[in-house]
């Protein structure tokens, strides 16, 4: 175990150092995303103002505000870039240098990303999460701060990140077969945004779709942790949702191992 840690710790450090080199890049990325969150906020504000009811599909306006900013925060927290980086490295052939090292391929990406996340979340945590909690304390009619829900949220969000990591990894391994991931990445991202509840809470979908989406892995990526934070689940529901998340996590870990087994046989490094 200690030799395992020793071997992969440098990747965390490398990830941290890389994130600090490109921190302005991350800040610009954040600004863009924040802008998106505010656009969504004004959109929903217009929807609630024009509606006769004070709550829509079980969401009051302050809850909706929380949902918007939380789903934005969760999106950054659970984002995984592995499919883009693996895709790029397959495309230009530099993946070869990774495969030539005596290390676990997935772990290599994972720890680099963790290093990146430590810095990025450090930058994001205080202004954003602080802002959300401040809104809850100061905002009119806002849901009260519930520390148990916050704890549940972080547990669920961490599992969500792991699912997302392995899901993206599985997806990225298809680059070994298709050579280029750009197109399929766009399609995947659009579907994930739609089915994970990033754009619209799943509660707003027709009942049939809701039931399908709830069981699909995508709701585990974002909707589940956010709903936990908002305290929308009964204790029984919380347990079953966590189990569903763990199921999908195990599913994607196993799937990634199976795909890797075949992908490595199919591997051809592009370029001289």
């Amino acid at each position, binding site marked *: 175990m200690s*030799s395992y840690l*020793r*071997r992969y*710790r*440098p*990747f965390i*450090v*490398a990830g941290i*150092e*890389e994130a600090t*080199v*490109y921190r302005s890049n991350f800040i610009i990325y954040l600004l863009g995303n924040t802008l998106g969150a505010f656009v969504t906020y004004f959109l929903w504000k217009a929807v609630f103002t024009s509606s006769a009811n004070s709550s829509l599909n079980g969401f009051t306006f302050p809850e909706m505000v929380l949902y918007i900013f939380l789903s934005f925060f969760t999106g950054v927290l659970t984002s995984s870039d592995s499919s883009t980086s693996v895709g790029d490295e397959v495309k230009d*052939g*530099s993946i*070869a*240098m990774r*495969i*030539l*090292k*005596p*290390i*676990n391929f997935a772990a290599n990406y994972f720890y680099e990303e963790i290093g990146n996340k430590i810095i990025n979340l450090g930058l994001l945590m205080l202004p954003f999460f602080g802002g959300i909690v401040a809104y809850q304390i100061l905002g009119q009619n806002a849901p009260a701060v519930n520390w148990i829900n916050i704890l549940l949220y972080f547990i669920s969000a961490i599992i969500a990140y792991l699912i997302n990591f392995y899901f993206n990894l599985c997806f990225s391994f298809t680059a070994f077969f298709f050579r280029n991931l750009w197109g399929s990445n766009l399609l995947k991202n659009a579907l994930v945004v739609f089915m994970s509840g990033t754009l619209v809470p799943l509660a707003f979908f027709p009942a049939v779709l809701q039931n399908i989406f709830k069981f699909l892995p995508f709701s585990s990526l974002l909707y589940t942790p956010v709903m936990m934070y908002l305290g929308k689940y009964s204790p029984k529901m919380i347990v079953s949702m966590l189990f569903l998340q763990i199921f999908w996590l195990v599913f994607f870990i196993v799937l990634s191992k199976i795909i890797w087994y075949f992908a*490595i*046989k*199919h*591997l*051809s*490094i592009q*370029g*001289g």
Partner: protein
Amino acid sequence: MAMIEVSHLQKNFKKTTKAPGLIGAFQSLIHPQYQTFEAVKDLSFEVPQGEILGFIGANGAGKSTTIKMLTGILAPTSGFCRINGKIPQEDRKNYVKDIGVVFGQRTQLWWDLPLQETYSVLKEIYDVPEKEFHKRMDFLNEILDLNEFITSPVRTLSLGQRMRADIAASLLHNPKVLFLDEPTIGLDVSVKDNIRKAIAQINHEEKTTIVLTTHDLDDIELLCNRIFMIDRGSEVFDGTIKELKGQFGRIREVEFELVDSNDGAKLDYSTLPVPVEIRQTGNTVVAKFDDSLVSVPNILKLTLAQVEVKDISVKDADIEEIVRQIFRKEAQEHEQLS
């Protein structure tokens, strides 16, 4: 037992054939046509421990494909290679501990980190003990002069520095086999020279087996005990440089420095039964001829009888010339066949 054993190695690629132009692109999108292309055909050879093998061939001859199979990042269509008793494709994580790889066109260094960080990462990856690591770094520092840029981020290094750093990175764990794919590409003469010296020293001190591909034939001449040449995926020649010269290199050159440059026109070799090619620049005349048909003393005798000479130098067959000949011959044969 040989360190590297290659047996009937074959790699076929499926290639989409595309008719030219926009219509062709459209056709290949809807109904792609495949063609099998043999990049490596039935290669077999062995490399004993401690040997430096020069692996040469024209662009697209299949060198890189072979190296990729040897390093385990490409699976052969049929046949196998075994290095240090291990099949690269079978147990990747274990196998790569035995080898070091440098691809001249790529880097294994962390692009955004100071160079020495890469070495600390590699130290952990390969489980190099602290003491061993320092000894190794000192050694690599000495032969590759890393000290002047070891604290700079990799992205700020010049190509020559990066290549030296990359070679050091591939040697940190003291591999049994070192694969160098065009390690001197794009470097200036003095850096090339440094790198060659380093490679020779490592081979000498550690008995590292080295497989070297290059387009620079000076690399081959200065480093390799043995040459393996391929063309269109098949073996063309396997042997020492001396054998290569013996087999193909009968072309010799004798250089004369004349006292009077006008004398050059007086030279006449038409009495000899074979053609002699003459080239003159200023005072220097070079006579090029086939060694097996006319001897060097004969040429000397004939020349000295005709003109006054200040200096003479007899050149060995130039390996570059030989390789050019072989490839030309191969290309002609190929054309006749098709």
